[in-house]
């Protein structure tokens, strides 16, 4: 399929009306701007999909955004009260940071600490975990394994008061209420804790009479800050498996095919015909992704949030251009409620997209994605604290 696109837009590919574009110029539909997606496999941990009809640059952006821009939570600060194991504090803190924590709904269910009113973490922007273990040397065991399963969640300060049916309703802002409503009950639990069959993550080994007592603060973050916040362990990304486009050179000693085995995705492509001349006009157009989650967020939600983030960033550029050039003044102050970003009057009429909410609101695209929403909009931010 790569580059083997027959003639102009044919058959069942929907002829999308391209109207309402700035300047009234139509961009012709080609083989790289009519996206088609095929999800081949999807479970909580892994997804495998084919994306075709987009530019290579776009496909790569999707890969980048899924890896680096989707927020999760991870342990970021560790307070050591006691550590008498041979593992240095720094090493243990690093290992704790890499433990994946359940971050479902973190996009809406937790604040960035820099956006929060608190000083150094509260219920609305932080999950506190405690680890307190000691080993007395029972049953003739020489050492004990300290694992991620021993991390216990403890309530962060500044949470909402316990519900009291008789008293007045608690004094909470709308923001706080939204966080409370979207907060996942398992938020911050180490992945696999309490699930039989999921081996816990080994943090340290402890000898007789040794002790660890520490308090961890887990914050929301993205993988651009530190890779521990990445929701994905792997994103496999490939295209043009037979190297028909010659984007790469396969160095080999004797036999190219034997030394460069084909990927499993190669069955979806036609092998090259050696008699055919090189098609220098061909462009890559089918991209094979395999995204593997660390289970902090279901992988489906990672893909959806990644796409939402792309939309959000692009909408930000449009807004900024409008502000900069001063045109469409009436459109840019459409609303601060997060529902209207930029709404071209005839945009929602484009069939097949069905997003009357405008693309400032990722949740408007479809309602069942639990994790649509806004990520750290940069406005009204208090000075950075971390």
């Amino acid at each position: 399929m790569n580059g083997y696109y027959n003639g102009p837009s044919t058959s069942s590919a929907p002829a999308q009306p391209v109207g309402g574009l700035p300047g009234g110029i139509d961009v012709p539909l080609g083989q790289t701007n009519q996206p088609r997606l095929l999800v081949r496999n999807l479970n909580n941990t892994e997804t495998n999909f084919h994306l075709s009809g987009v530019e290579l640059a776009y496909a790569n952006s999707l890969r980048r955004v899924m890896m680096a821009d989707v927020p999760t939570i991870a342990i970021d600060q560790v307070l050591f009260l006691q550590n008498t194991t041979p593992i240095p504090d720094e090493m243990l803190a690093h290992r704790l940071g890499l433990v994946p924590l359940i971050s479902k709904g973190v996009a809406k269910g937790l604040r960035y600490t820099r956006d929060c009113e608190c000083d150094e973490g509260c219920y609305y922007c932080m999950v506190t975990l405690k680890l307190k273990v000691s080993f007395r040397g029972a049953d003739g065991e020489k050492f004990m394994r300290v694992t991620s399963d021993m991390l216990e969640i403890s309530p962060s300060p500044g949470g909402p008061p316990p519900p009291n049916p008789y008293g007045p309703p608690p004094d909470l802002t709308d923001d706080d209420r939204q966080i409370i409503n979207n907060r996942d009950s398992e938020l911050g639990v180490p992945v696999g804790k309490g699930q039989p069959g999921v081996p816990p993550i080994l943090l340290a080994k402890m000898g007789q009479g040794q002790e660890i007592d520490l308090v961890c603060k887990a914050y929301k973050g993205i993988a651009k800050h530190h890779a521990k916040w990445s929701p994905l362990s792997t994103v496999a990304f490939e295209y043009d498996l037979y190297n028909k486009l010659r984007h790469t050179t396969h160095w080999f000693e004797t036999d190219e095919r034997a030394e460069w085995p084909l990927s499993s995705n190669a069955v979806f492509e036609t092998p090259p015909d050696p008699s055919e001349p090189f098609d220098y006009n061909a462009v890559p157009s089918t991209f094979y992704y395999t995204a593997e989650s660390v289970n902090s967020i279901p992988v489906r939600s990672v893909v959806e949030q990644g796409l939402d983030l792309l939309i959000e960033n692009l909408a930000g550029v449009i807004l900024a251009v409008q502000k900069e050039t001063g045109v469409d003044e009436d459109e840019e102050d459409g609303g601060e409620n997060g529902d209207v970003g930029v709404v071209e009057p005839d945009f929602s009429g484009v069939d097949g997209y069905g997003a009357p909410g405008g693309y400032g609101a990722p949740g408007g695209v479809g309602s069942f994605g639990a994790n649509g929403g806004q990520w750290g909009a940069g406005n009204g931010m208090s000075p950075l604290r971390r």
Partner: protein
Amino acid sequence: MNQPNRIDSWLLQDDEKPLTITEDPKIPNAATVLLRKQDHTLGNMIRAQLLLDPTVLFAGYKVPHPLENDIIIKIQTDERSNPADALKRACHLLIRQTVHIKQQFMDQAKNIEMGMGPDQALAGVNNGNYDPYSDGLGREGNTIVGGQVRDNNQTDVYDF
């Protein structure tokens, strides 16, 4: 440590504008757009989309310095348009594509989670004529729709 604050690589400062457009003093309809706190993710995508625009004569992007988290996009258009419009148009179209992709992903994900398998997908695999999108673009004239395959085939079509 003199390491710059990592948050600064993607978050705008309070007083920072996300973008500035500087018109080229010599070339008509040409401009340099400076996007702050952005990287290849946005730059490359926008550049590629700009090049599909019939009015765009030139589009390129670069990260001027690896330690500064800004990108610049240079755009030149013909007289039918101007760089700002072209940039807006490119972003509009990219958003449309993204919305379209998300829609398809959510539809198919829903199907899979309900145990139906991706609709009409993988229909042709067992016949050796793989045409995942059923639009005939993948293989010449071999569009096979799910029903037919299911009827005359022994194996589970959705066995992926």
